[in-house]
């Protein structure tokens, strides 16, 4: 097969291209041709298709997410806001904390262990890429009915995967959620949150600047993992009637990631890095275009230098591969040797694959021939934006009218009814003891866990001398959100906020993972719009800005969407963790007060 070079593409405008199979719409494909003034090469098409997928471009959600910035309450604590890998918050004493929650829902249904494991791996690299040492993880989970056979397959795999990966990284798991509801049967939610700590001066951003600086790819070799996974997994849904889709699954190597963490923190400590980006969904396509787009110049990459696990991969596949445990750093030429030395110390493979140029293009070469020549912003930051139609569903009124009221759902009368009600509530899986799950997670490692299960919020000490610490809680209730997405999102925030406040910490910032159905359904889009509006309004009132998060759409089985499920994480600071308030009664004779009404 001949290589589809830029030169060849200019000469062959009529070559048929598989844009539809790659998940692009006709007008999107036309737009790529307009941007480039010719048809894209195969490699360019691969990049645009993954980067313009819903998952990477947020094309349906962007217009609503804007509110989180526009309505953000003034906050002195915010050091880095939305748009970077994760937001960064000032917690005092020169420390900054970064945290973010992300979804790995679809991969976890296909292959529960690896899907959940690589979900942890991905969010940890996001946090690492900000310059922080990851210090804790949390895992808000939603499954189908507890006694459904699919739950039996998915739940143990997900929990083992989160434990297997997180435990092996040495990150304490300080909390999460396990909620069962039939609406998640064919579409469980696996959200993962990571918290990282750094000093203010260690904050790193994903940008490539300084002509002549080197682009270094380090970490695992690149294989065929999850090729096409980004567009296929994130833009399509599972259909009960067809056999399960089995795309190439990404397999995690937590040991490699642990080395990547230590190695990266060491190169940060020696100030060897100008810019850095983790490789997640969309792999090298994402890392190179985002670094170049955010930076001041262009970038030139020799793709054939990328160390491969599978020698037969084509340039398109290398650009789209979602092999895990890789990072991309921009390093001044004089510091490259030391950078490579530190990688060698940690047995991490590192390769100079290109350099920052003073041009404005992202140029990628394959054995000397040019296969990509694009303006990086058009790939990374100027993708399509949709104003999807949305409308309050006609069943909403009926659903709300069906709510329990005094005459329709009576209070239990008498001892027997009360007993029955109590038993019904107490025996529901959502009230069950979660220790089957939590005991599979290491909550002690690093020796700084002040609160973990069964507490309402997790708490981590970040300075052993001063006892400065942070508390984090995640909450979300899909049933409330379905009844009223605006208020439901606010309730999720209020609950997480309360859980943090109850420990004695002061809530500072918010992250969210918005799990919804198909944005092509106006009813779902309405739920989404309402939830965003509700969350943004509530954040404004409470004075806690959203610093980052993640949107997961197309969570549905066939035509049926999950309950709209905004999961909200709140981070708070406590200046002395020895003053934390655990939830248990401490000693006999203490008084119990009920606050609120």
């Amino acid at each position, binding site marked *: 097969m001949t290589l589809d070079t830029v030169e060849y593409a200019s000469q062959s405008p009529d070559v048929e291209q598989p844009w539809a199979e790659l998940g692009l719409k006709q007008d999107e494909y036309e737009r790529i041709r307009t941007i480039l003034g010719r048809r894209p090469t195969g490699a360019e098409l691969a990049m645009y298709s993954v980067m313009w997928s819903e998952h990477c471009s947020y094309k349906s959600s962007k217009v609503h997410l804007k509110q989180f910035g526009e309505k953000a309450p003034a906050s002195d604590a915010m050091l880095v806001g939305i748009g970077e890998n994760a937001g960064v918050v000032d917690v005092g004493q020169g420390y900054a904390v970064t945290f973010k929650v992300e979804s790995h829902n679809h991969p976890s249904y296909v292959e529960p262990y690896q899907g959940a494991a690589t979900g942890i791996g991905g969010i940890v690299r996001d946090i690492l890429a900000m310059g922080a040492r990851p210090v804790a993880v949390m895992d808000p989970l939603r499954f189908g009915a507890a006694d459904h056979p699919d739950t039996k397959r998915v739940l143990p795999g997900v929990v083992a995967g989160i434990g297997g990966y997180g435990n092996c990284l*040495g990150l304490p798991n300080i909390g999460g959620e396990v909620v069962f509801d039939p609406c998640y049967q064919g579409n469980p939610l696996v959200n993962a949150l990571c918290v990282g700590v750094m000093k203010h001066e260690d904050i790193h951003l994903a940008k490539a600047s300084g002509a002549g600086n080197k682009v270094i790819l380090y970490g695992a070799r690149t294989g065929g993992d999850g090729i096409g996974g980004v567009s296929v997994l994130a833009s399509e849904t599972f259909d009960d009637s067809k056999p399960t889709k089995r795309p190439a699954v990404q397999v995690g190597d937590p040991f*490699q990631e*642990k*080395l990547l963490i230590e190695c990266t923190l060491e190169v940060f400590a020696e100030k060897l890095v100008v810019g850095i980006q983790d490789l997640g969904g969309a792999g090298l396509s994402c890392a190179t275009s985002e670094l170049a787009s955010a930076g001041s110049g262009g970038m030139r990459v020799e793709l054939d230098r990328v160390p491969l696990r599978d020698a037969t991969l084509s340039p398109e596949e290398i650009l789209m591969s979602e092999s895990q445990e890789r990072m991309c750093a921009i390093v001044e030429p004089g510091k490259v040797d030391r950078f490579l030395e530190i990688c060698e110390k940690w047995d991490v493979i590192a390769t100079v694959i290109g350099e920052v140029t003073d041009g404005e293009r992202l140029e990628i070469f394959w054995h000397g021939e040019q296969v990509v020549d694009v303006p990086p912003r058009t790939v990374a930051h100027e993708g399509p934006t949709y104003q999807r139609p949305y409308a309050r569903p006609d069943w909403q009124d009926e659903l709300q009218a069906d709510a329990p009221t005094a005459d329709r759902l009576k209070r239990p009368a008498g001892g027997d009814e009360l007993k029955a009600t109590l038993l019904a509530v107490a025996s529901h899986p959502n009230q069950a003891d979660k220790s089957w799950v939590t005991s599979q997670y*290491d909550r*002690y490692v690093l*020796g700084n866990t002040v609160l973990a299960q069964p507490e309402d919020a997790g708490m981590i000490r970040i300075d*052993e001398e001063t006892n400065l610490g942070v508390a984090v809680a995640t909450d979300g209730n899909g049933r409330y959100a379905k009844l009223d997405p605006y208020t439901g999102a606010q309730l999720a925030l209020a609950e997480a906020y309360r859980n943090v406040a109850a420990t004695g910490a002061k809530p500072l910032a918010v992250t969210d993972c918005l799990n919804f159905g198909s944005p092509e359904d106006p009813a779902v889009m309405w739920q989404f719009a309402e939830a965003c509006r509700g969350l943004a309004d509530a954040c404004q009132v409470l004075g806690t800005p959203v610093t980052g998060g993640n949107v997961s759409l197309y969570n549905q089985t066939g035509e049926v969407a999950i309950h709209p499920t905004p999961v909200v994480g709140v981070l708070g600071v406590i200046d002395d963790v*020895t003053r934390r308030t655990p939830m248990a009664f401490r000693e006999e004779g203490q008084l119990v007060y009920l606050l609120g009404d």
Partner: protein
Amino acid sequence: MTVRVGVVTFPGSLDDRDAQRAVRLAGAEPVALWHRDQDLHQVDAVILPGGFSYGDYLRCGAISRFSPVMETIIAQANEGMPVLGICNGFQVLCESHLLPGALTRNDSLHFGCRDQRLRIENAATAWTSDYAQGQEITVPLKNGEGRFVAAEHTLDALEAEGRVVARYLDVNPNGSYRDIAGITNAAGNVVGLMPHPEHAVEPLTGPGTEGLGFFTSILKKLVDA
């Protein structure tokens, strides 16, 4: 005299910082040792910490056992230097044949993290002299492959020679033969322990401080020597 206790970092070690903290809280000086370095930097004792060295791929501890630092540690342990292996460190000690038996997959087939009650069965080793014989303590336990197994005659010999250092109480969390949580070599200088005493050295971050004794024992032993 400051007592210097080395803590080895293998690729994939996780509780190395925690072990160093415990050494410091006990009043000794922690010294970081690197797996590629044969030099033990004049330490008086060594701790092999918990974690997943080399990802615990192949078998836990199987790859670390062949690291340069282990060559020196094995030689010095055979000459009496105190060595404590915690969790993954215990696995390394068994793979190195400094201790008998092996640690295998938990019988539950799950990783388990819990606060575990133990009985100190031998308070005469280098690492347990600060405990009373038969003392009961609670420390965290967290492992996926912590089930101690050995041939019947090896188990009998361990019992007969008083080389069982600690035993699980209340529940046997991983199916260890004869509830064994930790053992020692014949000389009493090398101890392997599945639970994590380094996570029970501060009331704030652990179930109590009953793990500290392992670290103060070694301090006392070395200062007295």
